[in-house]
């Protein structure tokens, strides 16, 4: 039986509460600032400052009231309109799932060891529910790196062997990665989507427990008007200090934010790109993404596809829900500040592209708001930067002004009115709105003895929140400068040259930190000197911002330290429930990663192994799609074959290796030529060093 639809009054009431609170508090803050500025008439600079403040405060306000409402939802214990309320979680395998579900993992040059260990852990967790038969796994590879490509194939085959997964665990590598991730998913939907009612989209670093996967399917089955359910992923598994602090923050504060989001968005939720279940039929009908007119950065392919897909689904009348209270959904985050910034760089362009879509015809107002929030999450940084610069200029102008005590023929002096109270109020309100959600989340946590224990106890969790707040004060200006730089680079169509993202734990070296933060440090010092010289009063107010920027290099290096992260863990600081009481899927992942690390050490180079070893070679040949080639290309490949044979594998580029790998006939010929080369003593190409060689 389908659950009763949520009454319209609930929609209206909840949104009225949220938007009224946001608008009223913004208007009050604006009023306070106007009263400060209007002492001697509002200058054009002050109008700009006022505008910037209102925009930024509105943004902070929306975030604050979301958390505030979420706090009350969590305090009550449940939201009666939550999607999870429609379908109770049950582990009973007796409730058969008729619908077939594909668990799809689009990957692009990811670490195969982590990808396949993660899949194995998810598979095992699913198997333990007794309902694994209803699910198929798809590794949708867009990997371009030839070494990683063949390693993925070998690991896929091994996984199938280990889990007896032939016919249920599938792998394909696309010849062309058109449309990136959204193109990859579209390719899945158009080729195999007809066989599945649902697909659960995972990222390369995603993890979901078996019970969570089953629960998602059941919720979809029970709610036929729902096209997508997003389960918020909790960050786990990183050990550097930076990542541990982020994991802690996300675990402690994330809950009230997601509960608050669900409170006002209800069935007009958003899609975050992974850890979500999607109704395939609805997705294929509504989510074929067009190219945007014009050229990059605002035209061309839609880069951040998820927000747009949810808007398109909603436009067609489907519901999208956030299962904020479900659990069992995890992801891994970048280990260092620099890697975090690199990820931001990738997301920034996609989110800015949404500027054009905010007013697209037919989108639901809440979807427009999501698009705007996505844009603002990056645009806020250059706006803050501008606001701070203009505030400094305004302070300088104010400091130069001489007070006038006598107007006209009046004998009585007119004393300048002090607006310190109003200005301090504005500042306190802003800081409160920034930091109060952290306090609310802490109160909620301290109230629950079980949760308290999972976070290391009352004292440690409170200390953790305090230290995290100090750390976020240091980080915020650095991230602001990074994001401002990315936004400017995108607007100026310049490449800021960030390499691929690093997912595993690693430490930032001095050189790397210097290259990434030197400009910021110099800027911080310069601004500090100038403001101290010209506006000393402003300088002292500015110290919290300057401190983070000036200390960016040591803080970046220090926070990337894994040993330090482990020490804080031993001390019981920044503990998360997944560290103190990990989910089964996380334990399995650790176990499988250890196993596959041992295998990886004994395996050698996968490209060379596939080139020389007959079984690996045949496996690759069997997995290639049929491709015809013209004579010109055949000659080109023939040239590459002899280049590789004569000058070794290092003489061909990664792209050329991929070309050789991509054509079956060429690949088989290269294999035979290598075996036929009796005099080849190249250490990489000689077949004499194959395991089991006795010739």
């Amino acid at each position, binding site marked *: 039986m389908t659950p009763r639809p949520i009454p319209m009054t609930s929609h209206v009431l909840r949104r009225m509460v949220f938007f009224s609170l946001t608008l009223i508090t913004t208007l009050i803050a604006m009023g306070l600032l106007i009263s400060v500025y209007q002492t001697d008439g509002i200058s054009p600079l002050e109008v700009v400052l006022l505008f910037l403040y209102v925009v930024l405060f509105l943004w902070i306000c929306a975030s604050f009231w979301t958390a505030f409402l979420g706090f009350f939802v969590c305090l009550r214990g449940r939201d009666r309109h939550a999607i999870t309320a429609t379908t109770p979680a049950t582990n009973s395998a007796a409730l058969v799932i008729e619908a077939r579900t594909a668990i799809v993992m689009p990957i692009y040059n990811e670490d195969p060891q982590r990808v396949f260990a993660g899949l194995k852990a998810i598979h095992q967790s699913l198997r333990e529910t007794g309902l694994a038969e209803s699910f*198929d796994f798809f590794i949708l590879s867009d990997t371009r790196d030839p070494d990683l490509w063949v390693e993925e194939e070998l690991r*896929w*085959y091994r996984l*199938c062997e280990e889990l007896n997964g*032939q*016919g249920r665990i*599938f*792998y*394909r590598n696309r010849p062309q990665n058109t449309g990136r991730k959204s193109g990859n998913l*579209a390719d899945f*939907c*158009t*080729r*195999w*989507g*007809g*066989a599945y009612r649902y697909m659960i989209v995972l990222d390369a670093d995603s993890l979901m427990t078996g019970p969570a996967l089953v629960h998602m399917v059941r919720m979809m089955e029970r709610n036929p008007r729902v096209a997508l359910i997003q389960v918020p992923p909790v960050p786990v598994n990183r050990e550097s200090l930076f990542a541990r602090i982020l994991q802690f923050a996300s675990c402690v504060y994330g809950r009230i934010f997601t509960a608050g989001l669900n409170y006002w968005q209800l069935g007009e939720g958003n899609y975050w790109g992974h850890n979500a279940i999607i109704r*395939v*039929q609805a997705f*294929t*009908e*509504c*989510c*074929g*993404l*067009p190219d*945007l*007119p014009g050229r990059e950065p605002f035209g061309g392919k839609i880069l951040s596809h998820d927000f*747009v897909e949810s808007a*398109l689904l909603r436009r067609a009348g489907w519901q999208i829900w956030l299962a904020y209270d479900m659990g069992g959904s995890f992801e891994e985050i970048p280990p260092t500040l620099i890697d975090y910034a690199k990820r931001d760089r990738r997301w920034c362009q996609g989110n800015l592209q949404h500027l*054009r*879509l*905010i*007013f*697209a*015809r*037919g989108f639901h107002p809440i979807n427009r708001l999501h698009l705007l929030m996505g844009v603002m999450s990056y645009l806020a940084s250059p706006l803050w930067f501008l606001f701070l610069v203009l505030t400094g200029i305004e302070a300088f102008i104010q400091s130069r002004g001489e007070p006038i005590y006598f107007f006209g023929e009046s004998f009585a002096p007119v004393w300048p009115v002090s607006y310190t109270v109003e200005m301090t109020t504005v500042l306190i309100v802003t800081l409160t709105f920034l930091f109060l959600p952290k306090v609310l989340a802490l109160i909620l946590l301290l109230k629950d003895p079980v949760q308290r224990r999972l976070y290391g106890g009352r004292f440690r969790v409170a200390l953790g929140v305090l230290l995290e707040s100090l750390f976020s004060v240091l980080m915020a200006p650095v991230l602001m400068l990074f994001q401002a730089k990315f936004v400017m680079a995108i607007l100026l169509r310049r490449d800021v040259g960030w390499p691929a993202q690093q997912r595993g734990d690693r430490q930032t070296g001095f050189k790397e930190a210097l290259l990434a933060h030197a400009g910021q440090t110099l800027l911080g010092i310069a601004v500090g000197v100038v403001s101290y010289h010209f506006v000393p009063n402003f300088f002292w107010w500015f110290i919290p911002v300057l401190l983070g920027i000036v200390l960016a290099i040591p803080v970046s290096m220090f926070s990337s330290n894994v040993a330090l992260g482990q020490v804080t863990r031993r001390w019981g600081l920044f503990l998360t429930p997944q560290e103190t009481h990990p989910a089964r899927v996380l334990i399995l992942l650790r176990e499988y990663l250890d196993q596959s690390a041992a295998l990886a050490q004994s395996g050698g180079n996968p490209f060379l192994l596939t080139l020389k*070893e*007959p*079984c690996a070679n*045949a*496996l690759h*040949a*069997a*997995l*290639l799609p049929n491709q015809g080639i013209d004579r010109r290309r055949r000659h080109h490949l023939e040239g590459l074959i002899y280049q590789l044979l004569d000058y070794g594998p290092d003489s061909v580029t990664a792209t050329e290796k991929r070309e050789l790998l991509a054509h*079956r006939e060429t690949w*088989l010929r290269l294999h*035979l*030529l290598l*075996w*036929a*080369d*009796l005099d080849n003593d190249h250490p990489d190409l000689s*077949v004499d060093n*194959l395991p*089991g*060689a*006795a*010739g």
Partner: protein
Amino acid sequence: MSKIFRLLENTLETTPLWQETCQRVQWYWRMQGVRDERQCVVLSDRVMDRLSRHSQLITKQDLPYRAMEEAQRMLNDWLSLALQDQHPAVLAAGRVALLKGTVRNWPDRFVQETPLATADAIALRHALIHAVPPDATLPMPTQVIELFSLQRPIVALWRGLGRAVLALRHWLRQSRVSS
């Protein structure tokens, strides 16, 4: 003429390269999963024998490659009987299945040049890797997203103004006529 061929053949067969190639082929068979040394020798001799039949067409440089090619062709020909398919991808998948030990003692059959038993052939066909499932296509039409453009309201305004002017003119004319 045949004397010349014979002579050429003998020349190639007596070279150390012939022996080296023979050993390399034996090794290749071992890597293909033929564990018995004697079977490796038999199979490599068979490969070399096939080559010697048209050795007049083989240059010294070509010999090892031709031998490897012949070895693979031999295996593929035999496999295609069991798989009832000659597609290179299917044959490659068949080789993977053989190497993973799907059919025990397959080298015995292969050496004897007898096809696989029906049950074994079926098992082999079942063991073929399928990296992707059969196609189950769905159409995914490209959606239309009408972006906001200032042009639309300006055109609407222009048209509205035009209509208003026409209406005004019409009203003025009417009022003139009536007066």
